């Protein structure tokens, strides 16, 4: 379980996050949503243990993530950062996924046979095994994000945190990535936390919503509550319409 206690983060005198507290349970499928500049990515960086809040603490499975080593932390939460640049050098997909093994490597960094098997296992799970020898720079956006997810899986952390990974993808690639994450959650028991602007997907995946606005936790609600209480409207300060068809729901600006 992830517990965020009174997280406050400021840059000089600007409050980016203002006293945020919440809990994310094991097995949850969570969407962190909110307007641009609300502090979502800062929150992701804090959850991933990359930056330290000025006040408050994050515990994952009762471990304070700022008090354990970076490698220990990487074994309980893996992080797929926002990636608008594809500048990941000449590495092949397989070599990139293998970087997920990093927290388990010895001092000399020797990849054992078991490590390689693990890499192949997660590449199969994410359906990218056939791309194994392709260089990262030659992959499409959707393929690249699958490689990113496979690398995060290779870290074998229970919690996976993803920052807007479908933002630049076409409909089909988005659909595939979203289904993959849902499958990882429902069949493989990963706890998924996504920062997303894809409200429709988050609704239809029946996510738990953590709504951030102006650096504060604006609401924590189920998909049903988001719609019934029309939280989207107050969160984004605009009117929305809800459309239902074939058990699917779509939220569109009025």
């Amino acid at each position, binding site marked *: 379980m992830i517990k965020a206690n009174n997280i406050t983060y400021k840059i000089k005198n600007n409050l980016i996050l203002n006293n945020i507290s919440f809990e994310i349970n094991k097995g949850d499928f969570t969407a962190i949503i909110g307007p641009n500049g609300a502090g979502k990515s800062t929150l992701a960086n804090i959850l*991933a*243990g*990359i930056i330290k809040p000025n006040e408050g603490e994050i515990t994952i499975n009762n471990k304070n993530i700022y008090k354990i*080593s*970076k*490698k*220990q*932390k*990487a*074994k309980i939460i*893996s*992080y*797929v*950062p*926002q990636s608008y*640049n594809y*500048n*990941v*050098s*000449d*590495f092949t997909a397989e*070599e*990139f996924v293998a*970087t*997920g093994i*990093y*927290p388990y*490597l010895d*001092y*000399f*960094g020797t990849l054992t046979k078991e490590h390689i098997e693990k890499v192949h296992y997660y590449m199969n799970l994410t359906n990218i095994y056939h791309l194994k020898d392709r260089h990262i720079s030659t992959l499409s956006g959707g393929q690249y994000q699958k490689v990113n997810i496979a*690398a*995060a899986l290779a*870290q074998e952390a229970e919690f996976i945190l993803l920052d807007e990974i479908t933002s630049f993808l076409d409909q089909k690639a988005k659909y595939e990535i979203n289904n993959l994450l849902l499958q990882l959650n429902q069949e493989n028991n990963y706890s998924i936390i996504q920062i997303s602007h894809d409200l429709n997907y988050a609704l239809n995946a029946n996510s738990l919503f953590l709504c951030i606005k102006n650096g504060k936790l604006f609401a924590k609600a189920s998909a049903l509550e988001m719609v019934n209480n029309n939280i989207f409207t107050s969160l984004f300060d605009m009117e929305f319409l809800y459309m239902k068809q074939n058990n699917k729901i779509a939220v569109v600006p009025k």
Partner: protein
Amino acid sequence: MNKNIKIIITYLICLIVLFTAPFIGSYSINISSIFNVNTTDNYIFFHTRLPRVTAGFITGGILAVSGLVFQSIFKNPIATPFTLGVAGGASLGAALYIFFAQSVTIMALLGQTVAAMAGALITIFIVFFLSAVKRKLNNTTLLLSGVAVNFFTSALIMFMQYFADINQSYNITRYMIGNLAVVTNDNILLMLPVSFAAFFIIYLFHKELDILSMGENIAAGRGVNITYSVTILYFTVSLAIAAITASAGPIGFIGMIIPHIIRLFISYKNKILIPVSFIFGGAFLVMCDTISRTIIAPAELPVSIITSIIGAPFFIFLILKTNKL
């Protein structure tokens, strides 16, 4: 071509260079008499040529590996071992010594080495503390403070050269060109352990360097302790470069070009890139130094001139020929 075959061919070429270099020079050595203690051949081989080749090999190796480390952690293809101002600091130390203390002629070379070493060490710590002031040490603050300090030391050197007499100014310039002829056997005794320790430490960080070259966010997510890795690598590289430039001066181009050549033709993975760059860089400098010893024999050209004259066109040829860059 298979990667392993490429590596073996590279090592073979390097071995040939390293074994033939000590026999080439203005005095031709007879192989059969080098183990006869009473011959001139023996003396020249063991007291002049072999130390010179050794100095060239470790200098070239450390320059190549250091350039590689800085290129990876700053994700900047034109980073060199001297980007963060170590060579500038060493040159400033040497220049100060030449400017103020050159009258102590017997001690001249040793004193100049010590002064250069002190200049380099002071610069290393100034750059580190400037970048650490902002609480969070990262690659960008390190790069920027290094570049700023480098400009500052250059300005001070120019200031001194402006007021120095012709002789002092000439000596300062001679130091700043970079030359293996001035490396003494005592210097080699310092350079050897420092270089091999540095190589070993850098090699242990091959996995961190791979991930760091993909970006700091990815590295942080994988559990790489960025501050720790960058700090250790910065001090390791800088101290090794200080030990080398204090005696040989800043020898240019090798630190930038060798990692690119190995990356293009052999591997971008640091596990292979680090050792191959070291050996190829070392052999390349030995080859250039052999040319600089012989081309206008019995006089010598500073090796820095040769590395750039051979290296620059070769590098441009590679860039034009490959479409990987």
